């Protein structure tokens, strides 16, 4: 028996009691966005009710209270990622902005014509397009680490693909469309052996297992708050101090400056150099509350429970004739992507919606992955520790119903 009690945990998440179309909500779209515990929702109201003020410059009571709460989250994030210093934690809107920030600052100053940027074939569009834009601007080349038929990184090819022209490697930690957990530590070791820094897209990993940026030796690591029980519009970029200090600012504005005159502006130290304008203070404080929630649960047991859910769902889907799993890596986290013979993914997704079941259909912002497998898109169920085995059984039942309705009769 598993000691983890999702029944108790579920009570912390008000939205899980919703009844779409009068049916109990089954929320299997966690890879797109996680739900929020009540404490995180309350933190936003609490902030606006009792602490709202602009931070870092006000001399008054509220501003100091808000600034203290805000700064404390940076320290909590340092601990969450086991970063050496809170100065290496930059607040951004989300993982997408973090990639754009690094491409536009580190990338612009280090990548020149003829250089190379190395990514993988399973990247989210957010970790493709900013690098592609940089490469176009600079006349550099975007190179791609291939994946195998299970959706696993071809680690054997990585060493050859890191050349003397490679300026940065940017790799997803956990694939959002395949669920594959990538051997980022090994890739980082190979890259560092050639003096190349590595950016890790942690959008899908931080919600599912503990990340230690020092153990990985990642040069940059980014994730989005809303995927780890926090609010939307707030995310984190970790960068090694020496790299961040060598980078020019991203956007100009308030907070990021030391002094401004019409002749010359001097810039603030890290991390504020990268945080122009009034930040998402409420978002940061609510993200801090999400971190507190993570501390309150037994993470090892939560990981085990998610693995139990994934294994249960995998076996159930493999038992349905015509269902083909996309992404069968040995190491996976909480994502189950699949196609059904002669059943359109969108039609099946809408059918499940009529039953109150939330899944994602389509290419999941990873079109190259879909091309690799020769499919237009998949149905994706993605789990969180608050999901249950009963929900999976219900989902599988309705999937049978979808197939009965949608598969052509003469097939």
């Amino acid at each position, binding site marked *: 028996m598993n000691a983890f009690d999702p029944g108790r945990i579920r009570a912390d998440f008000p939205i899980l009691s919703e009844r779409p179309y009068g049916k109990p909500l089954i929320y299997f779209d966690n890879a797109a966005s996680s739900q929020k515990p009540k404490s995180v929702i309350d933190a936003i109201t609490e902030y606006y009710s009792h602490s709202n003020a602009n931070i870092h410059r006000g001399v008054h009571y509220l501003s100091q209270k808000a600034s203290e709460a805000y700064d404390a989250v940076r320290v909590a994030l340092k601990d969450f990622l086991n970063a050496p210093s809170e100065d290496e934690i930059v607040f951004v809107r989300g993982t997408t902005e973090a990639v754009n920030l690094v491409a536009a600052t580190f990338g612009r100053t280090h990548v020149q014509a003829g250089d190379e940027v190395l990514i993988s074939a399973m990247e989210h569009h957010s970790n493709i397009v900013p690098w592609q834009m940089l490469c176009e601007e600079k006349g550099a080349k975007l190179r791609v680490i291939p994946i195998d038929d299970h959706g696993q990184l071809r680690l054997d090819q990585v060493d050859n693909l890191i050349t003397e022209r490679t300026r940065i490697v940017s790799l997803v930690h956990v694939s959002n469309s395949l669920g594959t957990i990538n051997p980022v530590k090994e890739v980082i070791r190979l890259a560092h052996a050639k003096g190349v820094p590595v950016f890790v897209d942690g959008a899908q990993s931080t919600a599912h297992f503990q990340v230690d940026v020092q153990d990985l030796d990642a040069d940059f690591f980014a994730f989005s708050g809303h995927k780890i029980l926090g609010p939307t519009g707030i995310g984190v970029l970790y960068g090694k101090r020496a790299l961040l200090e060598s980078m020019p600012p991203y956007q100009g504005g308030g907070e990021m400056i030391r002094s401004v005159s019409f002749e010359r502006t001097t810039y603030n130290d890290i991390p504020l150099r990268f945080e122009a304008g009034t930040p998402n203070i409420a978002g940061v404080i609510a993200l801090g509350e999400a971190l507190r929630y993570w501390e309150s649960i037994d993470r090892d047991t939560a990981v085990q429970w998610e693995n139990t859910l994934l294994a249960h769902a995998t076996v159930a889907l493999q038992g349905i004739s015509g269902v083909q799993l996309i992404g069968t890596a040995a190491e996976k986290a909480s994502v189950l992507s699949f196609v059904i013979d002669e059943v359109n993914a*969108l039609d099946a997704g*809408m059918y499940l*919606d009529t*039953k109150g079941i939330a899944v994602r259909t389509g290419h999941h912002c990873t079109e190259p992955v879909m091309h690799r497998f020769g499919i237009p898109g998949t149905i994706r169920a993605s789990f969180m520790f608050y999901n249950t085995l009963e929900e999976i059984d219900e989902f599988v039942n309705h999937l049978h119903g979808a197939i009965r309705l949608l598969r*052509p009769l003469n097939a």
Partner: protein
Amino acid sequence: MEAIEQEIIDDFALFDTWEDKYQYIIELGQKLPVFNPEFKTDDYRIKGCQSSVWLDASYSDGRIVFYADSDSTFVKGEIALLMKVLSGRTPQEILDAKLEFIDSIGLRQHMAVTRANGLNAMVKQMKAYALAHSAN
């Protein structure tokens, strides 16, 4: 044309739930006449739809007849509804059609913006055919 729109609105009024509406649209999609696979090319493909949609039209005796297909049965059902109203009409009738039934039957509320855009793209393409023939 209003009479046919009203007929569709009345049909949908019989369904209380989204589940029933969905099933009905799927049935319509399954009954949509088979599309000549030769026309399933990029030339006939409508851009802006999450699913692949192909649309062709013929013009004779002052009327336009539409032929369409999709890889999604639900989208085929939506096409069937549009064709009920627009196919076999004069170019001017098609151009003037307001298609208020789409909102009345509550179809848009179940669509993400990207899908509603797909429906708009289909209507736009049908009207583009009509515009091309309205000068005739």
